[in-house]
Structures are given as C-alpha cells and as structure tokens.
C-alpha cells in the first residue's frame, strides 16, 4: 500500500490537495441547482475522505515531529509561507474531520430545504478551514484558517439555524473573534521578538517555537500566553467561557452542531497542545496557571455535568455535556503524563464520534416531531426501537461505559492526571457519576416511561439513509472501545514530544514506584 502511494508521490501533494479540493468543490457546488449541489458536495467529501485515508499508512508518526513538511512561497516580504505539516496528533484530527464531512452532507439531504447550493458550498469551505487549522505550521497561515472557519459557521447558524439564530450566530462570532484577535496580537509580538533576537522575520512555527524564549519575549510571556489562552479556552470551551456553546448548538442546523462539537471544539485543545503550552511552558506550568487551569477543568467537568442534568432541551443538555467532556481533555493535557495526554487525545476523538452521533440522532427525531423538549417525548422505545437502541448505545459511550470509546479517553486521562494532580483527579472522577445521572435521566424521559402523548405514537423509525449516516460513527464507537491500540500507537510519539516541550527536563516514560519510600517489609 505504502509503495503504491510513494509511486504516485502521495506525500508530496496530499496536504495542499486536501485543502484545495473542498474549496474548489465549493465553487462548483455554489453554481449548481439544489439536487445536483447535494450530490456533488457528497462526492467531493467522499473523495476527500478517500484521499485522506492514505495518510494513515504514508505518514511516519514514529518520530513524533512534523512530517510531510512543505513550505510554499506566499508573502516573502513578511516571512510568511504557506507551510504545511502533519504529526500523529494532527493526523487523527484530519481523519476525524474528513470522516465526518460526508456524513454531515448526507445527513443534511432531506432537512435543508432552502438555498441548498449555498449551504453545501459553505460546508465545503468550512472543511478547508478546519483541515487548514490542523496542518498549518506557519502562524499567519494558521491564523487565517482559524478565522476562515468562523465565517461559514456564522452563516450556517445565521441562515439555516433555528428561531433565535441571529442572536446565537452573532454571539458565537463575537465571542470567538474577541479571543482570536488577542491571539493575533500575541503572534505579531512573537514574530517581532524573534526577529529582534535573530534578525529573521518569520511566521514559521518552528522559528517561533525555537525563539519563544528570546530575551525580549520572556518579560511579556505571561501576557502572550494569556492571549493564546483566551483564544483557545473560548474555543474548548472552558468554564467560564462556555456560554456561547449552548446557544450556538441549539440554533445551529444538525450538521452545524455536529461539526461544532466534533471538530471545532477540538481546535481549542489542539491549540493548547500545539501552540500555547509548547511556546510558553514555564508560564503554563507556573503554580498560578496550573492551579487556575486545573481548577477550571475540574469545575468544567462537574459543573457541565450538573447543569446538563437540568436542561429541558436535549441539544442544550448535550452542549453542557461537551463542557464536561472537554474538561477531561484539558485536565489530561495539563497533567503532561503519557497517559494523560493520550487520554486527552482519545477524549477529543471519542467525543467527536459520540457527540457527533448524538447530535445526528437529535436532529433525526427533531425532523419527526419538530421539538427538542425532553418533556415532549417518553416511552418511544416501543415505536422507534432502532432509534432507541442506537441512542442508548451512543449515550452509554458518552457515559464512559468500558468497551465503548468514551471510557478509553476518560480512563487514561484520569490515570495520567492522578500522578500529577491527585486531588483534582479525585474530584474529576466524580464526573463518571454525574454523567450517568444526566444521560440516563434524559434517556428515561425520552425512550422509556409510559407512552402518554398520542403524537408520539406514529413516529416512523430511522430510514436507511439515516442508518448509513450513523453506521460509521457506531462502528467507530465500538472499534475504538475495544481496540484503540492502533490509534494510541500512532499518537504516542507526538504525545511524548509534547510532554518534552511542556515539561523540559522531566522524565517522560514510565512509572515511578512512589510507594517504595514507605519501606517494604
């Protein structure tokens, strides 16, 4: 397989091609009629997925550093290049994105009934934006993609969203924009600082990484870190920067919610892993910042779960559950142990599958009943057994039932963090109780109890197309729960490399037998 890919020079062109194909597709789709637009959009995303699959074999992730690095001329005067690269971490994020996009397109077929060409074109532009964020290794380019991705999302919510869509889309836009503008300032300051120290003006990630400790930058490092922190913390979202999420989720069309939860939130955690912490490890691991971040992560886990428990709207419930899940990812990232970081990455991927599937399912039932009020349902397991079965499996994955994907990430995060932050981890572990509480309670009120509303008696069960949308996610949920080893192996070198950058001078590997100090008898 690898030989075949080498013979066609796959590694030389794949990254730029992955960025170009969706946007080129968007240009075509935008000009087509509704029916044709759907089909072409689906074809483009499927092609994109097939193209991206080669990365699994062709990228050598064992080094833990960036592979397939290519830098194309762009704005040489300012030291800006169109530089792309990929490591084990971004590989998984890229594959997660390319896998979800065809499902989002197919999952929108019957539900989006106005201005279809524009809708599908925006989905494709969004794809380029998201992939760009994960493979850009030039800070200017990264910033461009980071912003590019906002615009289609703004329109997706603002045009195809629910009743309160304008408020939600504006809130989403301004919230994220506020964070990212500060980040832009920080990037510019870093470029200047590095230029003063080395005489080279460059936005290159490696250049800035190497010179983030330049004399002129050390003094302002806390402020620079804060700027990055805000941009990423809003995206994650960490408590208390999360209130844009429930509104955006509730108003977004199904595919928008799926993309928001499955991919966009991961850009926040990805940003911490790739940029904020490696740039400023001494700030990130100062007593103060550790205390603040770990506290916010743990608050997010418990708070998100408790607030999710009392939501009357299913979409809001899932939105708050994301706050809780991403709290685990933040905890694992800051723990900086192999298990913690690997767990955080598994949470990111696993959450993409299970929450993506949850939003698809909510969308499917919404199309049938035109409500997302939990109280409007009850006892529908009898009417829609297949829907109920899948909803149960996905909810259990989200609860973290071992054997399904959610458990792997949570377990690794908690194991890994226990070494660094035992008390915080102990509190975070109570999240497993609250997760069961809010999801099982919701599940009971939706599919169990007495079927007492006549309008629920005639809901049709899932169609074949809907099953096709859900099937890949379900397979992923079970597969990653039972055999996550290949994914973990792909990411481990990059995770270790991150730990070396985050905690320079600390041993990365293995277990220290702490209890020996007690004196064995």
């Amino acid at each position, binding site marked *: 397989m690898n030989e075949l890919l080498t013979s066609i020079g796959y590694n030389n062109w794949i990254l730029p091609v992955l960025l170009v194909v969706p946007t080129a597709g968007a240009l075509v789709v935008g000009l087509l009629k509704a029916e044709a637009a759907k089909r072409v959009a689906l074809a483009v995303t499927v092609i994109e997925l097939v193209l991206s699959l080669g990365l699994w074999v062709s990228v050598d992730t064992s080094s833990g550093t960036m592979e397939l690095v290519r830098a194309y001329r762009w704005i040489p005067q300012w030291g800006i290049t169109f530089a792309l690269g990929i490591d084990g971490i971004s590989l998984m994020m890229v594959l997660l994105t390319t896998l979800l996009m065809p499902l989002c397109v197919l999952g929108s077929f019957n539900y989006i009934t106005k201005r279809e060409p524009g809708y599908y074109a925006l989905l494709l532009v969004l794809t380029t934006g998201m992939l760009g964020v994960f493979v850009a290794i030039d800070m200017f380019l990264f910033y461009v993609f980071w912003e590019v991705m906002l615009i289609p999302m703004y329109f997706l919510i603002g045009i195809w969203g629910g009743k309160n869509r304008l408020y939600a889309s504006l809130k989403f836009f301004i*919230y994220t924009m506020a964070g990212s503008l500060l980040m832009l300032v920080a990037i510019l300051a870093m470029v200047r600082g590095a230029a003063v120290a080395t005489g080279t003006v460059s936005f290159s990630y490696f250049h800035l990484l190497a010179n983030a400790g330049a004399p002129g930058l050390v003094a302002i490092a806390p402020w620079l870190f804060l700027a990055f922190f805000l941009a990423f913390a809003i995206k994650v979202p960490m408590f208390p920067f999360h209130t844009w999420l429930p509104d955006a989720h509730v108003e977004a069309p199904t595919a928008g919610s799926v993309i928001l939860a499955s991919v966009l939130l991961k850009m926040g955690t990805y940003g911490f892993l790739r940029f904020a912490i490696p740039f400023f490890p001494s700030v990130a691991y100062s007593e103060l910042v550790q205390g603040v971040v770990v506290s916010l992560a743990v608050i997010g886990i418990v708070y998100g779960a*408790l607030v999710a428990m009392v939501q009357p709207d299913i979409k809001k419930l899932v939105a708050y559950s994301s706050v809780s899940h991403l709290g685990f990812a933040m905890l694992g990232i800051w723990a900086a*142990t192999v298990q913690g970081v690997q767990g955080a990455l598994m949470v990111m991927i696993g959450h993409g599958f299970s929450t993506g599937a949850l939003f698809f399912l909510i969308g499917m039932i919404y199309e049938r009943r035109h409500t997302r009020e939990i109280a409007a349902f009850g006892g529908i397991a009898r009417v829609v057994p297949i829907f109920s079965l899948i909803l149960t499996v996905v909810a259990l994955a989200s609860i973290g039932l071992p054997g399904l994907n959610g458990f792997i990430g949570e377990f690794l995060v908690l194991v890994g963090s*226990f070494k660094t932050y035992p008390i915080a*981890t102990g509190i975070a572990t109570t999240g497993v109780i609250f997760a*069961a509480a809010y999801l099982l309670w919701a599940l009971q009120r939706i599919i169990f109890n007495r079927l007492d509303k006549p309008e629920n008696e005639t809901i049709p069960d899932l169609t074949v197309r809907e099953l096709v949308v859900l099937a890949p996610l379900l397979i992923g949920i079970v597969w990653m729960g039972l055999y996550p*080893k290949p994914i973990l192996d792909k990411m481990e070198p990059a995770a270790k490399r991150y730990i070396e950058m985050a905690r320079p001078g600390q041993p990365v590997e293995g277990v220290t037998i702490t209890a020996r100090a007690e004196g064995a008898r």
Partner: protein
Amino acid sequence: MNPSWIWLTIALPFIGFLVNGALALAKPEAKRVVAIVGPGVLLAAFAVAVGIFAGLWGNPPDQPLVFPLWAWIGAGGLEINLALQVDQLSLVMLLVVTGVGSLIHIFSVGYMVADPGFARFFAYLNLFMVFMLILILGSSLPVLFVGWEGVGLCSYLLIGFWYQEKANADAGKKAFIVNRIGDFGALVAMFILFWSLGTLEFAEIATLAPTTLAVGGATVTAATLFLFLGCAGKSAQIPLYVWLPDAMAGPTPVSALIHAATMVTAGVYLVARTSVLFAMAPLSSAVVAGVGALTAIFAATIGLRQYDIKKVLAYSTVSQLGYMFLGVGSAAYTAGVFHLVTHAFFKALLFLGSGSVIHAMHHAYHATHSHDDAQDIRNMGGLKRYLPTTFILMLLATLAIAGIPPFSGFFSKDEILASAFGRGAEHPIYYLFWALGAAAALLTAFYMMRMMAMTFWGENRTGATEREHLHEAPMVMTGPLIVLGVLSVIGGVINLPAFWPTPPHHGLERWLEPVLAPAARLMPVQIPHGATEYALIGAAILIAVVGLVAGYRTTLAKPITAAQQAPEEVGFAKVLFHKYYIDELYHSLIVRPLVGISRFVLWRFVDQGVIDGAGVNGSAGLMKSLGWLGTRLQSGQLGFYVIVFLVGAVWLLHSVIR
C-alpha cells in the same frame, strides 16, 4: 478440555445475544428459536466450563493461566491486554455462574413465554452472561471493570425491562447511578495501584504488593478502601445498598440470576481476588467486616416487616452479602467464597420459587380480572396445597439459609461466624462483628419462616374464585428448582469442616489454596478449636431453631388480613416497613438539593445570570452604550462642535503653557 478454550464460554452467550437481539428487532414472535438459543448457548458454555474444570481437576495450576486475546490499551507504562485468567478461583466462579445461569435461563423459558418482549429478554440475559464471565475471567482490574460495568448495564436494562412503568425505569436508573458511586471508588483504587505498583494485572499485584508496599501503610489502606467502595456499590452494602430492593422491579428470573446468585456477589469475588491487598491492610479488612456485619443485621431487621415476597428476599440478599463481607473481612476468603456458592444455590432457588408463586398468583388474578397485588404475602396463605413442589423446595432453601445442619448454608455461615469470632482474639472489635452476625442469623431464620408461613401455611387469602385458578408451575420451571433444591441441600459437601464425621474435608479450601496462599501468609484465618468451636456451633444451631420456631408461631398466632384490608403499621413496625426512611432521607438530603442547586444556582444564577447576563451580554451592553454616546456626540449641531473645539483648545493651550 484445554483451558485455552476459555474464550468459548464468553463467545457462546455472545452469539446468543446477537441471535436473540436480531430476532427481538426483526422477528419478536419467533419464540421457539429464542427458547432454544437462549438457554442453549448457556448450557454449551457450562459444558465448556465443566470440560476445562475436569481437565484441571487432576493437576491444578500453581500459577494462574493467562490467555491474552488482544492488546487493548497502551499508553506509556500502562499496557493492558484483553486477557482471560483461569485459576482455581475463577473456575469456581465460572462453574457457579454458568451452572446456575443455565438453570435460570431454562426457568425463564417457562416464566417469560407469554411476554411480548421474550426475545429482547433473552438477548439481555445472554449479554449479561457475557459481561459476568468477563468480570470473573478478566486477568486485570481494567478488564474486570469491563465486565463490572457491563453487568451493571444489563442489570439496568433488565430492571427496567417493563419500561412502560415509570417506577421500573426509575429503579433501573437508580441501580446504575448508585453503582456508579461505587465505580468511582474502583477507579480511584486503580489509579493508586497503578502509580504505586506499575501494574493492574492480578497476578503481578499479588507478587509485587507484598514486596513493594508497606503492610498497613497508607497506600495499600487507601487502595483497598476505595476498592471496597466499589464492592459496596455492586454488592449492595451500607450505604449503597438502596438500589437492590428497588431492583426487584425486574422480572423474577432476573432477580434470581443477577440480584442474588451472580452479579451482586461480584464485590465479594473482587475482595477475594485482591485478597493480598486486603490482607496487607488490617484497617480496611476491619472496615469490610464491620460494614458486612452491620449490613447483615440492618437489612435483616427490614426484612422482618416486608410484605412483598420479593422484597423480603431482596433484603435477605443484602443481609447475606453482608455475611460474605464479614467472612472476607475476617481474612476467611474461602469461607466468603463458600457462602457465595451456597447462597447462589439457595437464594436462586428461593427467588425462582417465589417466581413460581407469583406466576400462579398472577394467573389466578388475571383469570378473574382482579387488581390485587400478586406479590403480597398477605394475599397468599395455604399455598402448599396448590404448589406442593415449590413449597417443599422453598422449605429446603429456608432451612439452608437459616443454617440448619446438614443443609449447605449451615456450613458456610458457620465458618464465617467462627472466623470472625476467632479473629476477635487478636482484634476484639471482631467479637462485636460476630455478635452482630449471630443476631442477624436469628433474624434471618425468623423472617424467612415468617415469609414461608404467610405464603404456604394457614388460611388462603387469595379470594374464593381466584383460588380455583392456583396451580403448580410447568416442568420447565420446576425442573431447575429441583436441581437447585438438591444443590441447596448437599452443597455444603464442597467444604466440610474437620469436625464433620465424613470426608471430604476442606475441599474448597484446599482447591483455592494456591490462589489465597499469599494472603493467608500475611493474615492467617483463625478458627477456634475444641470446646469454643463446639459451643459456637451449638449456639448457631440453637439460634436457627429458635428463629424458625418463633417465626412460624408468631406469624400464625393470629389471623392475617389480606393486603386490601390490612391496617396501617404503627410504631417501630412502621419504621421497619418504611425501611428506616433511608430512601426518603437520601432523596431529600442528596437528590433534591443536587437537582435544585444545579437548576437554580448553577444554571439559572451562575450560567444565565452571572456569566451570560452580567459578563457576556453585560459587556455587549456596555459597548452598545459607548456606541450610543458616540452617536450623541455627532449631533450635527455646529454650536455644540464649536464649544467642544474651544474647550479642547483651551485645555491644550493650558497644558502647553504649563
């Protein structure tokens, strides 16, 4: 049979799950196929278990045989294989689980045949067996945890099997969430063990712990206490027992299989499995024994005043699980496992027997369209005339649980009490635990006989026309009962004490010796000998006889009124009837405040009020006001501009001149 075939015991019920699950969705009316596949896969798994057991009988392994299936998780130093472990302990569990499981599956064919969810029921039941087998065969804590959570899931699904009743769905949810509180403990225990030992494999824990950790040290004490929290959840001990009585909302075979014979004993199994750690932590062992003894007596008192036949048995199960923990907490791991096995026989029999009774009552009420409670023993009475086989078998089980020799329960319960007493010599607190256990034995005999008397003796209170429809269950149900009856009577033979006149003596103890030896070296079992031993046995028998006689006499001393006309309970009886109001206490102390705080403080106040209202929309509002000010400035009136210009110019001049 080669033990490497062990995976087959899991694969067989899994196939059953797939077949029955597919039928449940596509062709639920295909009950014949379900009736063959459901119990069939279990019998096949039992056959494999027997084959493997027979193969190892002659030359038992001195080290656990571990069969890796595939590499599951790998991150840094944490490498977990999905691996199955065959040793003496897992073999005992395997035989009990597949054996009793098969009988209950067969019984269920008769019990559930009229239910439209027949296929779904067997799909869940088969899936439960899959996870239960993973639980007992897993070679490491995380793999055990897969089974541990999986059985919890199936328990949840089966308690809420008739989910159209809100109460049933509530009970299922409650079971899952309360168990999760325990799972929190199990997880923290794993974290502690991983970072102190570097492994979560049972075999490695057993060899590493004694050389790495300090006996009685903080690490091993904390790890075992957290582990026990997990056990208290799964095995329904104080303070997490509250889910088990509610779990009786599930179909009765489920109560027998999951909530009596197998799943709820998993906590006892886990303590025995990690016996080395508990033996290194005397404090934790005392906590285990103490909680066990307290639960034994506490649940027994509630059992005195329950009228639902399944509720009586449920509190009895909680109480008997307490005995098992009293045993393993007294370092008598063999005795704990022994009682686990005998209890699986007689309690499965009692539950299935109650199922047979309920089946008959239900038919009678169904035929006459009566809405009376088919599970209330006040509506029964004199049933021995109508259900003679069930009566005889349940009576045998009652004698076994009460501890009458030579029935199985006598031996296992006696060994536990003797071990607790023996340990009292070193740690006097164990005398108290023994006393609680002995008192609970008296109550056990009493409430069991009360239940039997109200059900089978005296006048029948079912109703004149209803009575005509009472009849014994079909052979497919009584058959498994008879097998369990035989096991309940002779089950003690697997571990006869030395004072018993006929061999084999200490069979189970010798069989488990290789597994439990490391723990026994650290904390040996202390069974009193000679006069003390005989005095204890005499007292135990006396207690049982007194309890049974008193239970029979007081119950039938005055006429019993049927549930409809029954007067309200008064005084302490009312407190017992309401289970000490613990559920109400938990509800108003934990559940309601948590939901209230989440809704009104966290969501409405913090989230919507402070963060979104004051913070986000507040800053948006501030910007809006600033913008409004800006628009005001551009009023278009020349005079205003001139004034502003003049003020500015004067200020500028002033600052320049100064």
